[in-house]
């Protein structure tokens, strides 16, 4: 790993800015993401900031199955992020497609859709329907440790 890559990883771990992408969630996972920002969990104290643009993001928080309409958009958002960028599949839907696995609007699990663009993408999975905010914090912390 080059020095530059090391610096990039160090920056990523220090204060991961996240961009929230809903690719077809029922909105419950999204509500739990908002919960993360409330004073009770307050992930900003850990340096996790919600970014307004994928270009500022160190991690994408993807919720929901990838629908036919969202698929190209998710890929475009991933292309726009600065690499390395973590992709966090939040919730049963994003991890496995959940109960929607044979629905008519389903266009591939989130990890496959991302790997089409970048086969070496760093993808982590946080299951739950929806996952608890504690689980999200734990999952992201573990992922950052393993980088």
């Amino acid at each position, binding site marked *: 790993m080059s020095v530059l890559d090391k610096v990039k990883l160090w920056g990523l771990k220090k204060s991961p800015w996240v961009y929230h992408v809903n690719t077809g969630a029922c909105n419950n996972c999204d509500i739990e993401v908002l919960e993360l920002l409330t004073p009770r969990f307050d992930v900003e104290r850990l340096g996790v900031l919600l970014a307004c643009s994928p270009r500022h993001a160190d991690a994408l928080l993807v919720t929901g199955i990838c*629908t*036919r*309409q969202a698929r190209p958009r998710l890929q475009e958002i991933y292309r726009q992020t600065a690499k390395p960028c973590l992709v966090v599949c939040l919730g049963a839907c994003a991890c496995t497609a959940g109960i929607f696995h*044979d*629905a*008519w*609007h*389903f266009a591939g699990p989130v990890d496959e859709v991302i790997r089409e663009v970048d086969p070496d993408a760093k993808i982590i999975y946080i299951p739950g329907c929806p996952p608890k905010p504690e689980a999200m914090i734990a999952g992201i912390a573990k992922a950052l440790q393993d980088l």
Partner: protein
Amino acid sequence: MAEDLEQTIQRLKELAGDVPLGWDRPRPKRVYIAVDKKDAREFARMLFEDFGARFATATGTDIGEELEVVYHFECDAVGLVINMRERTPKGDPVVPSITPVVPAADWIEREMNDLVGIVFDGHPDPRRLILADDWPDGVYPLRRDKKNDA
């Protein structure tokens, strides 16, 4: 004194007159009213304006040979739910739109058009609402004969 449930239903019966084809009250606070599709818009207008019910939502279903549209109206003061149902054969999936008289029905009628292929005649803005942009025309995902290829 505010009118109670039975008085409300009595008033509904008077306003409805002999328009309904069928009238069913499976539970005290639930009334299903079947109407001919040609009367649907006027009946919805009556429920909404004259009777004073609130439009909640609508449901489109493929029931085999026919398509059924159920408009759900609520009368919150007494907790009464009124379901206006109409049917149309699959070969002629056109029913009158109630959006001109009940504006809140706009998006749900467009959604039923997308998913079940019911055409709402007189809808002011019948564009595609929720299907993906590249979804083929004329394929309705919630029709019984649609098989999921995924």
